[in-house]
């Protein structure tokens, strides 16, 4: 009996063990999987010589590709025709087209190009018209009229514009308004289709210039249309409508395409390019490209087949848009994209030796999304197409997950061995991760970058202890104060600033500080002052906290902060503060317009510094780093770290190298780059603008008064001053999210008079001490 019991017990244990081991993934199975090979691979091909911008591209009858574009710097226009594989461009420079801008262009199958735009007239006015460039490069000028212009609207426009302009100028403007063309496209029969600014599509007879309405939509409903072969695809917010270009009849709905547009709605467009482009394989089959990848679709088919996943290519970069896509060779595609201020050509060809599925995956985790991070990821994807990059955002803004919850989920994944490889540590418990050995020493990566481009050593030193650095921001911002000398001097300590503000308020001279609400005030002051709060034992000094709260309350009370401030929403998310490259340059403009007398905020770009100096040149004033104690603090942004449990350390290091590289540092965005060469390059760009024409920025006040200032040409001395300010930074502000939340949450109650100073300080100190005791 006893033996039986023992056997039964052993059986139970075996079943349990078998059950437990069955839960894991079988890595051996994965290893023995057959590698499937062959997929489309991306390659950037050179733009036709001299051309930097594409206006239109199309496939000709013989299979070659024609591009109409210009050189951004010289303004010269070109037509380039390729071989059948989209290579070896034959470029022809066109005679001066004499336009002030081009609003739409299209290439026909016979090689002629239609260009809509504002063309300069003999009397120097600019008028909307159409120019046709024949295959022989002869240019024909054509006036056109939309057949059903709404007269009442025209008269209204006339009445409005005549108030401000002379009759003749008003007539030209109204003419241009009523002849505006947003998009045009040829069909395979040579008919030209045009979209006006009202959202109607017209069919034009090229030889006579006559037009007939093809289809109409509610104003603003039609976002984009494409003509491929004898099909016209009209994309609206609701989906896609397909028309026959021959008789104008609407074809049956294609539900797969409609669903695709619903899932990926078009949000913006410009430079004659869009977030999607189509090309037809034949009458019933088409290929389209968007930010999800390259897709093959059969008309009325039940699914679109993905030919290429955007994750491994330029396509995933949400900042790019598409000029067009054309098939080349047997199974290749040429895609024209607009990126930054220029165009690029990407060629996709089938490589039978490339692995069909990219197996290496680099996981990057950030609490909050960042456009800058996305751009760096795009650059990494392009350099390392054999690595799939997965970006996970903890607080995606839709799910209502708090930072605490996101961090807990992340920790669970890390402990389960399924964590990310690279962490963007903004808002995370960095010190705790370092103490637990969760982060790898990244100093070798930093040393390499330092050797190649140089780094701001003072920033690096803040994150280096005993020769090791476990985290490092790729960008940083600094807190500055700007205004009259007296004000800037007073801002050296918070009590003095509060006293000065009170004095100004008594004088009744209008606005004193930027209108940023309670949270904004607390946040800006926190960034300037918090670095001085920590005592030697690592705890917060009560007296410093008291001074901070009292000053914040005084500043809040001196005038109109009880109202919801114009910039209050910025402080709901640090990201939004960063999107504008720091807050200081916005508040300085408010000083120009008379809204406030003292500006303070974060400065994160050389161009922001230039704006500040430009306004100072106009209305006087000085600027200084705003630090209320001995430490010169900065606000780190995009703080990077590599997780110690990663199996892809090399890939993670490669990513960090790109993140800290000169190329990524040059991307305009939030914060100064820690990469010295990138910073120098940003400065050089603005220094070299001495040769260019002066820029003027104007603001119209509520009473109609116009205030303008001339953008200052930065001098070497200006750059030297800025650099010396940056080089003096020696400590990061307290970025611990928990402490910051305590201070802001309780501080808000104090500013809004819900609790006394003593209660607030006690509450914050209790919580902070408890947090530190944990």
């Amino acid at each position: 009996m006893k033996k039986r019991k023992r056997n039964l017990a052993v059986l139970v244990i075996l079943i349990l063990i078998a059950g437990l081991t069955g839960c894991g993934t079988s890595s051996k199975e994965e290893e023995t999987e057959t590698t499937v090979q062959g997929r489309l691979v991306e390659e950037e091909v050179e733009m036709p010589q001299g051309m930097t911008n594409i206006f239109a591209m199309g496939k000709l009858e013989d299979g070659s590709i024609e591009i109409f574009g210009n050189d951004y710097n010289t303004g010269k226009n070109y037509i380039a025709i390729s071989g059948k594989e989209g290579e070896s461009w034959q470029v022809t420079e066109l005679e001066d087209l004499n336009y002030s801008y081009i609003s739409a262009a299209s290439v026909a199958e016979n090689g002629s190009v239609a260009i809509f735009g504002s063309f300069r007239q003999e009397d120097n006015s600019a008028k909307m018209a159409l120019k046709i460039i024949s295959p022989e490069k002869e240019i024909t000028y054509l006036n056109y009229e939309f057949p059903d212009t709404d007269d009442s609207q025209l008269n209204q426009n006339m009445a409005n514009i005549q108030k401000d302009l002379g009759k003749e100028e008003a007539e030209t403007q109204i003419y241009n308004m009523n002849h505006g063309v947003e998009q045009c496209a040829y069909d395979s029969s040579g008919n030209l289709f045009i979209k006006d600014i009202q959202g109607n599509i017209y069919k034009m007879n090229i030889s006579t210039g006559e037009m007939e309405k093809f289809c109409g939509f509610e104003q603003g409903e039609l976002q984009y249309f494409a003509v491929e072969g004898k099909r016209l695809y009209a994309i609206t917010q609701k989906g896609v409508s397909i028309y026959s270009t021959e008789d104008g009849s609407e074809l049956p709905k294609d539900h797969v395409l409609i669903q695709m547009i619903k899932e990926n709605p078009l949000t913006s467009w410009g430079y004659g390019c869009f977030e999607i482009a189509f090309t037809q394989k034949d009458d019933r089959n088409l290929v389209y490209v968007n930010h999800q990848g390259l897709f093959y679709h059969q008309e009325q088919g039940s699914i679109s087949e993905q030919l290429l996943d955007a994750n491994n290519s330029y396509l995933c970069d949400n900042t790019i848009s598409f000029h067009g896509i054309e098939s080349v060779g047997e199974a290749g595609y040429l895609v024209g994209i607009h990126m930054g201020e220029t165009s690029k050509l990407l060629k996709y060809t089938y490589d039978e030796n490339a692995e069909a599925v990219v197996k290496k995956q680099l996981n990057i985790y950030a609490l909050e999304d960042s456009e800058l991070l996305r751009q760096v990821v795009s650059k990494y994807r392009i350099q390392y197409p054999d690595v799939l990059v997965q970006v996970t955002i903890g607080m995606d803004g839709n799910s209502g997950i708090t930072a605490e919850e996101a961090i807990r989920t992340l920790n669970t994944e890390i402990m389960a061995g399924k964590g990310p490889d690279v962490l963007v540590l903004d808002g995370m418990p960095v010190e705790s991760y370092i103490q637990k050995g969760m982060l790898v020493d990244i100093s070798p990566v930093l040393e390499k970058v330092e050797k190649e481009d140089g780094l701001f050593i003072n920033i690096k030193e803040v994150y280096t202890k005993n020769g090791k650095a476990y985290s490092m921001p790729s960008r940083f911002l600094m807190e500055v104060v700007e205004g009259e000398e007296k004000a800037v001097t007073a801002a050296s300590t918070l009590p003095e600033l509060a006293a000065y503000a009170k004095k100004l308020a008594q004088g009744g001279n209008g606005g004193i500080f930027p209108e940023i609400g309670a949270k904004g005030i607390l946040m800006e002051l926190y960034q300037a002052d918090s670095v001085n709060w920590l005592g030697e034992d690592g705890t917060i000094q009560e007296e410093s906290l008291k001074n901070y709260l009292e000053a914040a309350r005084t500043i809040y009370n001196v005038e109109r902060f009880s109202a919801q401030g114009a910039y209050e929403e910025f402080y709901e998310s640090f990201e939004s503060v960063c999107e504008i490259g720091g807050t200081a340059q916005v508040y300085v403009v408010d000083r120009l317009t008379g809204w406030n007398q003292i500006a303070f905020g974060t400065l994160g770009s050389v161009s922001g510094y230039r704006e500040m100096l430009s306004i100072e040149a106009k209305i006087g004033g000085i600027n200084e780093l705003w630090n209320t104690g001995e430490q010169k603090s900065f606000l780190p942004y995009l703080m990077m770290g590599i997780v110690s449990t990663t199996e892809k350390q090399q890939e993670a290091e490669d990513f960090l190298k790109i993140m800290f590289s000169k190329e990524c540092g040059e991307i305009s965005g939030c914060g100064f780059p820690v990469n010295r060469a990138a910073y120098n390059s940003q400065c050089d760009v603005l220094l070299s603008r001495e040769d260019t024409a002066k820029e003027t920025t104007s603001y119209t006040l509520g009473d109609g008064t116009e205030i303008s200032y001339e953008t200052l040409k930065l001098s070497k001395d200006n750059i030297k001053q800025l650099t010396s300010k940056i080089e003096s930074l020696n400590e990061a502000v307290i970025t611990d999210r928990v402490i910051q939340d305590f201070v802001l949450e309780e501080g808000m109650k104090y500013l809004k008079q819900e609790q006394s100073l003593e209660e607030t300080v006690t509450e914050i100190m209790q919580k902070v001490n408890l947090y530190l005791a944990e």
Partner: protein
Amino acid sequence: MKSKKGILFILPGLSGVMVFYLIPFLDVAVRSFQKIDGKFCGFDNYQKVLENKAFHLAVENTIYFVLVCLPLLLVLSLLAAVILQRTGSLGKLCKSAYLIPLAVPAAGVVLLWKLIFDNHGMLNQLLLWLGQNTVDYMNTNASFYVLVFSYIWKNLGYTVVLWSAGLSVIPENIYEAAWVDGAGKLRTFLSITLPNLKQTAFTIVVISFLNSFKVFREAYLVAGNYPQQSIYMLQHLFNNWFRELDMDKMAAAAVLLFLVILIFVYMLHRSWEEEH
């Protein structure tokens, strides 16, 4: 043969307990002697936990909470059960009503808390109307009593049902014999009802003790990770340690907590067995 059948019956449940509780707990016990990187560190984690001021505060609060809540709940629920047993069909209706708090989701309870106990909540409005000073219930020591109230409110009905089950199995003829002998209500309660409820009492004390740890959910939803100090419980600390990846401290504290509960239940069991 009978015992073999019994094992087969408990096998599914036992498997679940082993997979989801016992084996993970063994892993926790092993981790309590390791650093986060897996290196053995002896009793360092236990030392760290026992020296931790936040742990002291959380333990003090939790013990105080148990000492206040447990007797209060046992007495109130027993009284309610006895009264309800003697009120016939109305008693049955009331018993069902007592169970409603168990069905109310924690998020709903929290909303109610905020409406009632907020600085500008209903209770303070009432105090103002009565000409009294308002009390900031959630940011003063009063928050402890709000938590006690919430625990009693939520668990009273369930405990009443458990007591009622115990009361219903006491044979009626014992009471009848006592009444014939001239015993009054108090005498029958003390000499018949209470002694016959000892077995039920053991179950109720253990369940209520364990439930007292679950009150964290409401406290967390109302006041977050760092509530007023008097309602900072062990689970707050565990929760915060998890955020900071202090797995070593968490493991040691979990083992300590397990030992305390084990000793408590064992002692209770021993004392009950001794009396039998």
